[in-house]
């Protein structure tokens, strides 16, 4: 008699077979749950982000000069914490617990904002804690997504996660404005509701997301937890982590991702250029963001799947080619509405082809034992480069003109894309191609 020793592997195989024929790869329950965690956490985060400037300026006594400086230091601190959390997740093999600390911290911050005094020092401290929370959770969460996903479906899995995450980012401002419309200046209420929503996200992670470990491959309510985990060696030391991460392929990706991020003008700047050129009303700013985000949300999953099929490096480069088109559109003498529509569509597609795809690309390269550290390193490198890029763009804009700034960034992007293409080609032999 033929015996199935492991029901879950059979189910998994069948699902994958079915999935291939019909709707493409299936993403695991863990990825969807992590996506929902991010969705709820992002609603809360964006609610706070939406009202905090209003709150700080209106209630707190706020000096714009000091703010920029403090802002920079806080981002730096969060990036460093992210590196540590990635490594701790790897070393303890407890990505979930590390991520939970990050999500929990951010939820706690909302409660803090609701109850804290309006002193700027208290609010700055809470904003710092929130950033640290985000720094802590990103790498272990992405590591969990990658560990719970077969290598050939990574692009789709990150696509699903980013799409859910983005829905949260769009709902947040809506919630905040809805509350302020019902009760004017009810900032405390916004924070209380944000805390409740963040707590739901935290609950999904802690109570529903299975810890990615072999013993969890049991059936949960008739559904298979498809979270496989290769046998992992003993605990990694910091030195080993650095050595494994320092392989030529990873180094190539790290440098390419950093260079590309440096040549990427932040969307805030692109909106400002649009506003500058078309004399848009400032009230339209949130709408620009919503338009771009809609495109991103719709394209994240299909583009992730395409990346799984034709190669993540290629899709990543195509994404930056779209950004180049955005720069081109901004310089082109186009009619107002057309310019805005085209720029927003291209930006959304650019994010869809780069954000989750980069995480998938990196996950495919970094060995599982040091996945968290590797992803954290990429996050930190791109984060620092984005900060530098903002400073550079602002400086060029101030000293010369918007068109010069865009031209300089366009040229830099071409160079970065050339560098990336060269390093991807040079190290491509073990890249995963499926289909």
């Amino acid at each position, binding site marked *: 008699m033929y015996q199935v020793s492991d029901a879950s592997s059979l189910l998994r195989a069948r699902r994958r077979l079915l999935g291939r024929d019909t709707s493409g790869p299936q993403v695991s329950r863990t990825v969807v749950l992590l996506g929902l965690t991010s969705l709820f956490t992002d609603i809360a985060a964006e609610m706070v982000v939406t009202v905090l400037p209003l709150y700080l300026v209106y209630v707190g006594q*706020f000096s714009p000069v*000091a703010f920029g400086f403090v802002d920079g230091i806080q981002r730096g601190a969060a990036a460093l914490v992210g590196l540590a959390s990635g490594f701790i997740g790897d070393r303890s093999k407890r990505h979930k617990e590390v991520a939970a600390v990050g999500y929990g911290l951010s939820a706690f911050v909302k409660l803090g904002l609701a109850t804290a005094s309006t002193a700027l020092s208290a609010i700055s401290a809470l904003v710092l804690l929130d950033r640290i929370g985000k720094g802590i959770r990103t790498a272990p969460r992405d590591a969990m997504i990658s560990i719970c996903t077969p290598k050939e479906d990574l692009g789709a899995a990150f696509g699903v996660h980013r799409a859910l995450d983005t829905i949260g980012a769009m709902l947040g401002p809506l919630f905040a404005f809805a509350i302020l419309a019902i009760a004017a200046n009810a900032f405390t209420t916004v924070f209380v509701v944000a805390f409740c929503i963040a707590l739901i996200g935290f609950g999904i992670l802690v109570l529903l997301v299975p810890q990615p470990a072999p013993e969890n491959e049991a059936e949960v309510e008739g559904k298979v937890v498809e979270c496989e985990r290769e046998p992992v060696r003993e605990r990694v030391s910091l030195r080993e982590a650095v050595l494994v991460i320092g392989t030529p392929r990873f180094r190539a990706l790290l440098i390419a991702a950093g260079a590309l991020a440096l040549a990427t003008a932040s969307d805030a700047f692109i909106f400002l250029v649009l506003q500058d050129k078309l004399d848009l009303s400032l009230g339209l700013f949130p709408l620009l963001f919503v338009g771009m985000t809609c495109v991103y949300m719709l394209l994240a999953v299909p583009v992730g799947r395409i990346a799984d099929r034709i190669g993540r490096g290629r899709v990543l480069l195509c994404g930056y080619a779209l950004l180049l088109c955005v720069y081109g559109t901004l310089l082109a003498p186009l009619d107002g509405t057309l310019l805005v529509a085209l720029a927003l569509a291209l930006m959304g597609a650019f994010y869809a082809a780069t954000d989750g795809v980069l995480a998938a690309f990196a996950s495919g390269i970094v060995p599982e034992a040091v996945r968290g550290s590797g992803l954290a390193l990429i996050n930190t490198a791109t984060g620092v480069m984005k900060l530098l890029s903002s400073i550079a763009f602002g400086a060029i804009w101030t000293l010369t003109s918007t068109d010069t700034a865009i031209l300089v960034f366009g040229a830099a992007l071409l160079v970065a894309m050339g560098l990336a293409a060269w390093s991807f080609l040079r190290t491509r032999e073990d890249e995963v191609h499926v289909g």
Partner: protein
Amino acid sequence: MSAKRRMQLFGALVAACVAAGVVAVVVAAGGVGTTASTAARDVLIAARDDDAPRLVFRNLDRAKPQSFGQIAVAGLSPDATRTLVQLKCERVYFDAGSGICLARGTAFASGYRARIFGADFKLRGQVDVEGVPSRARISPDGTLGSVTLFVSGHSYADVGGFSTTTTLIDVSRGKKIAQLEDFTTTRAGRKVTSPDVNYWGVTFARERDRFYATLTTGGRFYLVEGSVSGRTMKTIHPNVECPSLSPDQTRIAYKKRVGPGGNRWRLHVLNLATMRETALAETRSVDDQVEWLDDDHVLYGFNESVWTVPAGGSGRPQRYAAQADSPTVVRW
């Protein structure tokens, strides 16, 4: 913990969170309906007929959320009784029979409205503005208004950098005249062209057309003197924010940045004839555009109270009205 138990716990968590969120919103929404009687509309008109000076301000009694932010009228003494008016604002100013009130509009996003009202508190017009209300002023002849709002994300520098827009308003027609950003400004004879300029805190002179305001560019702050009809401004003194011209038109009370990196403000008075600065006895960092109680005292909001301090640098600050801000002294 079993999977079933986890699901139950999660269900309980969601139920608790939804309930708490709904309760929070419902409680806050209870503050929407305003409760002042319509008879209160007559309070300023009666004061005008009696030629009695009045203090108009925002009432900030947190124990009564329904009336929080409502405009109140009281006599010019610290313990005068308050009459609440059916008007809620973030910032209010009143002079020469015209008032301006910055209130949240019904529009989505960052919409505010500068509502213009008369001594009867009846709405005479409104102008849509964007951002977070910061300052509001009416000229001594009641024809010009000015509002400053913080606009987040307007700064090209970085996220987290904020900037302001200051709008001049034709009070009689209820229309925008211009943004100060559109005026031509000169500093030491040279035109200021950098894109990082911000203007805020207008104060109008009794002589029609002339005004003062704050200019910031390149991390420095200046007092500018301007002409509405000429659409020009020129810098006349450094490190002045939120100027406020004295009733006798000889001095300007303002916030001066002091301390390491200019991280705090100290209220000062600038003599316009001699350009001599005098620090006031208030040592706390006050962020407000002060209002002159008379030629010898100023009023300002701090920690949800209105305070007063002598304008000559002597004395010490005293609480003038608790649970109040945005003071404006009304004389007839």
